[in-house]
């Protein structure tokens, strides 16, 4: 993975750039000291590290606007950052770039129960929003596992999701409005407390754009009333095929559970050893299905799910009878990553989506690869929506293992695309999957996406080197070649 070569001209002007930024954000808001910059050198993808040229921590939208405009005028690149929990290197700094930290935007601005929405600054954590409305029984539905730490601004940039998303949608389905700043300093508002922003769905394309289109400075999200009850059922299968069949049958029966997660044998064992959730250890696949809603609905559906599981040959099934028990079912799943961390010095978490029916094939091929790369793999799986999280176990201290783990991971993602899926279901492309983009999209597809980027940021100064494998100049991308008169297309039916 190579980042664009730093611009020595910009680095030579470092002092001048820092001075200009200090006139906009006073005092501690500009960090230039190397030991302090260290804290920002990577995000959740710790394999890649880079000290930023300077860190700026603005606290008002006007400051953000002036910082961006100044950087544009001085030809300086900018990398936005929320909490730095990205697993794809989206917030990886640039040696010749400003790291724009949004942590000071940490206030909730308006809680509006009548319109069922919250207006918040982008640096507020995902869980912070749910906590702020919990006293009235409301919550914010998308629930990435990182929700205590990650910011809503980062969630917008990554279109984050979690266990709830099969039923309640991803970030993009739960955002009503945005305020954002373009690279030239323009402040825009899209949408608001009403539905459908009007005009093009710019909010739709900004959500999930990984900090490449603009800096989000305010967010309006919708909130939901908490379901009256939730119950979970733990179902074990002798083979992962049967587990997959059961998931398909549940959906075919018209049931969309609040959450539906699957783990394979290595993940089950690691989790059980760690949290003692009471998982069965003699099954190949373990499914957690959670149903939420009014008690009458949950009781009715949990029976149906148990029935479907029996018909698909489950060899273990346990329905939660108390809130405590339900949480204990989840405790193992939620601790799966750290649990795997205990059985291996390092692990690498992949994230691809497949059509669910391809699961047996994908698991089988992954086993083959595991043998070939001589690295173990454990699987946790958002079963309802086909989002795989293979965890590749390796030891960074053994020469070559990291490289093997990465190559293994790339092969898994290519396999996801090969069976009709996609490179990433929730962690984003970032730098991690950037060079695989050509496996999913051809050049024409990528050019069109980069032209959208040009509409927002014509100089390509915002978070360059992420998402797109090749950087194009907007002027080149914009050219249209017309061959007047050469094309007559006689075969197309005309009337």
């Amino acid at each position, binding site marked *: 993975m190579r980042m664009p070569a730093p611009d020595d001209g910009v680095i030579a002007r470092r002092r001048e750039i820092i001075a200009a930024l200090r006139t906009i954000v006073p005092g501690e808001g500009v960090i230039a000291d190397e030991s302090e910059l260290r804290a920002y050198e990577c995000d959740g993808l710790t394999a890649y590290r880079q000290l930023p040229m300077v860190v700026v921590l603005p606290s008002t939208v006007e400051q953000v606007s002036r910082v961006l405009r100044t950087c544009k005028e001085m030809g300086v690149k900018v990398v936005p950052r929320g909490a730095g929990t990205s697993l794809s290197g989206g917030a990886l700094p640039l040696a010749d770039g400003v790291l724009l930290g949004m942590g000071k935007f940490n206030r909730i601005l308006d809680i509006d129960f009548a319109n069922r929405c919250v207006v918040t600054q982008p640096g507020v954590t995902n869980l912070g929003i749910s906590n702020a409305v919990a006293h009235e029984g409301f919550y914010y539905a998308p629930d990435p596992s990182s929700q205590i730490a990650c910011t809503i601004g980062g969630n917008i940039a990554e279109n984050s999701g979690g266990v709830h998303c099969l039923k309640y949608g991803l970030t993009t389905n739960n955002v009503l409005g945005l305020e954002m700043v373009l690279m030239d300093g323009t402040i825009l508002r899209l949408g608001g*407390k009403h539905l459908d922003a009007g005009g093009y769905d*710019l909010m739709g394309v900004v959500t999930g754009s990984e900090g490449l289109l603009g800096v989000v400075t305010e967010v309006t999200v919708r909130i939901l009333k908490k379901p009256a009850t939730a119950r979970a059922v733990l179902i074990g299968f002798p083979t992962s095929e049967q587990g997959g069949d059961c998931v398909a049958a549940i959906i075919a029966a018209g049931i969309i559970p609040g959450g539906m997660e699957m783990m394979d044998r290595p993940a089950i064992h690691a989790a059980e050893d760690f949290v003692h959730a009471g998982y069965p250890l003699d099954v190949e696949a373990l499914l957690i299905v959670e149903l939420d809603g009014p008690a009458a609905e949950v009781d009715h559906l949990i029976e149906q799910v148990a029935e479907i599981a029996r018909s698909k040959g489950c060899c273990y099934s346990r329905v939660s009878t108390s809130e405590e028990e339900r949480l204990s079912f989840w405790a193992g799943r939620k601790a799966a990553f750290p649990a795997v961390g205990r059985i291996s010095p390092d692990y690498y978490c992949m994230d691809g989506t497949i059509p669910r029916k391809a699961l047996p094939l994908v698991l089988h091929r992954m086993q083959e690869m595991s043998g070939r790369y001589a690295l173990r793999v454990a699987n946790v799986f958002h079963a309802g929506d086909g989002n795989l999280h293979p965890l590749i176990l390796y030891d960074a201290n053994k020469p070559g293992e990291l490289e093997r783990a990465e190559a293994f991971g790339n092969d898994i993602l290519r396999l996801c695309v090969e069976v009709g899926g996609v*490179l990433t279901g929730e962690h984003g492309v970032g730098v991690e999957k950037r060079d695989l983009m050509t496996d999913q999209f051809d050049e024409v597809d990528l050019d069109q996406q980069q032209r959208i980027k040009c*509409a927002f940021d014509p100089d390509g100064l915002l978070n360059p080197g992420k998402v797109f494998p090749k950087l194009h100049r907007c002027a080149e991308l914009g050219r249209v070649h017309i061959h007047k008169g050469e094309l007559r297309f006689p075969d197309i039916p005309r*009337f």
Partner: protein
Amino acid sequence: MTVTTIKPDSAAQAADAVRWALSEGTPLDVAGSGSKRGLGRPIQTACTLDLSGLSGVVAYEAEELVLTARAGTPMAEILPMLAERRQQLAFEPQDLGPLFGRPEGQGTLGGVVASGLAGPRRISAGSARDHTLGIAGVNGRGDLYKGGGKVVKNVTGYDVPKLMAGSFGTLTALTELTVKVLPAPEDCRTLLLAGREDAGAVAALTAALQSPYDVSGAAHLPAAVAARSDVRAVAAVGGAVTLVRVEGFGPSVTARVAALKEELGADAVLDRDESLVVWREVRDVAYFGPTPSPASAGEGRGGGDDSRHVWKISVQPSEGPRVAESIRWALDAELYFDWGGGLIWAAVAPAADAAAAIRGALGTAGHATLVRAPEDVRIAAEVFHPLPDPVMALSRRVKESFDPCGILNPGRMYAGV
């Protein structure tokens, strides 16, 4: 002017057609089944790109919750196919045929997505944008490209499919779409509250939507509108009618209806069949359509005055009653509420200052689209809500990024876009 229609029957031909238009400098009127004549800002193009030849479902995998179809596939083909597997497009696409005095069931999947249409379930299930997973199509440069994916969870690259929803064919001539499909509810009931004025009705709808009972429809019909319903129990109230829909599995619907009845104090509960009819009327703006339904032979639904201009107004729900009141005060308007007060459908007697009055009443609380009016009115008024300058400037650049020479539906949404 001589009007040519080009009707490709493959995506490659559609790309050739756009390249031809580009080489000739001839803008194209992009059409699905072509029921679009009255839609958007009137445009003048010598050539129509008719995409109805790109028809047929490519893949339908009920258990994967996805359907891929060519863009010109009639909704009339897709909906029964889904129904057979007890699935649906959860955003409840509208069929505005009746509003325009045309038969029902005319739209295509491409037209529905390009128009960004969604029905009463918008409040819980989202809009066309929320269910469009992947697209393929031809941009204004004649490039056949794809965006998004064919699985329900995908964050790879920009979410191009979202941008297509509601772009009215100005960015790309869509050739294929992949949409998310979801189980259709097993049962459906509607609580009916009689005789509430707007503010009280919206307060009741708000209470319903704040409950944990998963309300999937929340509408309010003032007396004159309710009187036009085909559902006897609605028309017979003889006053305003407020409706709260509950859908899902049988036992769940029963329990939730009972709980809501307790909380809201409903006057009646409509059964499944009545519910289906009344929500279809609400969805399709049937109350303002010119044609009475055959069933009611001149009475009931329809009977709307088709000389009235129809506006679709999206507003923050708590502001709905106030906006409605100021529209009524300024204009001769009939209106009703959907989306818990957040959507106002208004049928307005022709008046020169109608657009200004409606948008003035809204302020920054939402946006208003002129959906039905004669061509000369749509030339004079801004059909789509004017955008703030920076958003307009960005929208122009986005248009250029897809269609630098203005070949696809130029000016349909905004002048120069």
